[in-house]
């Protein structure tokens, strides 16, 4: 069965025997994540000691500890921690959604926004900006609505055409609807003023600066629900990789399973993109790296991708802050993920090409 896209041999090289054990992944992931969170909160224009961070968190939870300095408390609890948690949720969600899309489409080049989320959220965000409605919560609301509209249209067309959600039908209607939304975005841009255009471009670069607890709250439910449901359904995703007929013969309904997974991944991605703007490469690269580390079995892969994406995006965001502090120029986190991700992806392509010839 031919699979469209590049050779599947891009991901090779893990060695595991028992692919279903979750506990080691959970333990290692939690430890690394905790370490990275402490590091990210500690470093910046004002550095704080890890002990102070823990004291701030404990006193927020009203545990009987000595309260930290109010200035430290503000920096930790109101500025850095919400931003770090936003990075954790966005990174985890994007990586998990990317893993799902790559599995559902049996294609290692699928990325989380493939089914209209990218085009739809951009149009929604631009409408908010051009309509003068962009506040720190209405812009995400517009972007989310735009993404959901695009996803709904794509799935509606695929189901309504009687194509039984075959992947080809989905991808083609996805391309058509995305092109439509991009055209509307271009049209709106050509009618917008300079300030609006530059605000839009700033949004498309993606970033986590000045994200507050409200933003974290907007992402947490879609990301956690997606993570839990997919780990629960991970084996169905493995079996879907065999192809639709094989899946059916093994008792997995390809239609229902694919629709559920696509909708979960799309809603999760839309919620994240609405808050952070489009951040590339996390959803593409992290699943590949994790597949090398823990193998292709989705039960473990999904969990590992969640940790990997969270840590990767958080550290990329830390780089932007460390860069901004002496220079005063805040670069977008999307720039860093692409700068790190693109060369790594090229390395993967070269490696797989070499393996293909030998």
């Amino acid at each position: 069965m031919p699979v469209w896209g590049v050779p599947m041999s891009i991901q090779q090289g893990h060695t595991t025997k028992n692919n279903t054990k979750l506990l080691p992944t959970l333990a290692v992931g939690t430890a690394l994540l905790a370490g990275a969170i402490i590091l990210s909160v500690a470093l910046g224009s004002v550095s704080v000691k890890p002990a102070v961070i823990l004291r701030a968190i404990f006193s927020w939870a009203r545990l009987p500890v000595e309260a930290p300095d109010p200035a430290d408390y503000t920096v930790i609890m109101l500025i850095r921690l919400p931003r770090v948690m936003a990075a954790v949720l966005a990174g985890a969600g994007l990586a998990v959604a990317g893993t799902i899309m790559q599995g559902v489409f049996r294609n290692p080049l699928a990325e989380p926004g493939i089914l209209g989320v990218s085009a739809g959220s951009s149009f929604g965000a631009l409408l908010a900006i051009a309509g003068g409605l962009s506040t720190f919560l209405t812009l995400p609301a517009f972007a989310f609505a735009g993404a959901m509209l695009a996803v709904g249209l794509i799935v509606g067309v695929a189901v309504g055409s009687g194509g039984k959600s075959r992947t080809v039908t989905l991808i083609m209607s996805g391309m058509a609807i995305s092109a439509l939304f991009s055209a509307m975005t271009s049209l709106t841009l050509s009618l917008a003023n300079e300030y609006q255009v530059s605000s839009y471009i700033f949004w498309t670069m993606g970033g986590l600066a000045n994200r507050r607890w409200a933003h974290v709250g907007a992402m947490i439910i879609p990301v956690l629900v997606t993570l839990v449901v997919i780990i629960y359904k991970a084996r169905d995703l493995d079996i879907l990789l065999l192809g639709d007929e094989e899946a059916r013969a093994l008792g997995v309904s390809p239609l229902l399973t694919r629709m559920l997974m696509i909708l979960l991944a799309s809603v999760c991605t839309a919620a994240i993109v609405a808050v952070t703007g489009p951040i590339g490469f996390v959803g593409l690269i992290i699943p590949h790296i994790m597949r090398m580390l823990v193998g292709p079995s989705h039960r473990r892969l999904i969990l590992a991708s969640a940790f990997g994406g969270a840590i990767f995006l958080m550290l990329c965001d830390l780089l932007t802050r460390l860069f901004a502090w002496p220079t005063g120029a805040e670069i977008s986190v999307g720039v860093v993920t692409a700068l790190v991700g693109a060369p790594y992806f090229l390395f993967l392509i070269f490696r797989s090409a070499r393996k293909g010839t030998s």
Partner: protein
Amino acid sequence: MEAELTLNTAPVRMLCEQLGYKVGGQNRLTILDQVSFSAQNGDFIGIVGPNGAGKTTLLRQIGGLLQPTAGTIACNGRLVHQYRARDYARICSYMHQDTVMPFDFPVRDVVLMGRHPYATALAAYSAADYDYAERCMERAGCLQDADKRVTALSGGERQRVMFARILAQDTPLVLLDEPTASLDIRYAHEVFRQIRGLAQAGKLVIAVMHDLRAAARYCNRLFLLYRGELVAQGDPEDVLHEGHISYAFDIAAKTYRNELGHWDFDLVE
């Protein structure tokens, strides 16, 4: 290759009446027409016929992978396409001609997928599942490949893995689409022997067969399909009558018993 397997041989009765399948819009193309048969536990039925006769289509109908456009196909008194996928997967397993996976799963994991219809959603596969899969791999002759990646296997090795997965699914009805197409003569014989053993133990096996000699030798019943119609069914040597062969395959053939007493044929120039 003789690891012990406890086999599920629950009663299964397939009843197919006036089954038809057409595709295309205005000038509809008939793939299957008025196919009727019944089958139950203990049979190893071979579906034979020329290319394009509808052999695989019939097998897919039985497996619930296609819905008929005319007639009915029922398993244990219930239409096949009315079963929930998971319920039918505990009755019927289906081996495709070839299966390619996009990511490199270890062979062991692919065979374990055969246990999926029985596993509860959240729990990992049990130790019993691992043990059963291991014995299936031994039976199918692929235990030595257990920790290799499926993407690194040859076509023949992959076909043995898929056969192991079918054994692991352990359903009373087993459907096989040319299960030995990529195998060398030794493994082809071994796999056919295994399949005949499954039927003798009480499963119902239906296989698309390309090799008429193998069909005559291992099956106890044959279906001869020609242009979507079931033109002959019954005892292998009756179905593989010279007249039937020349009619269905449009070629003159002479059938005889070879020195070992097996059915054989040769083409007449």
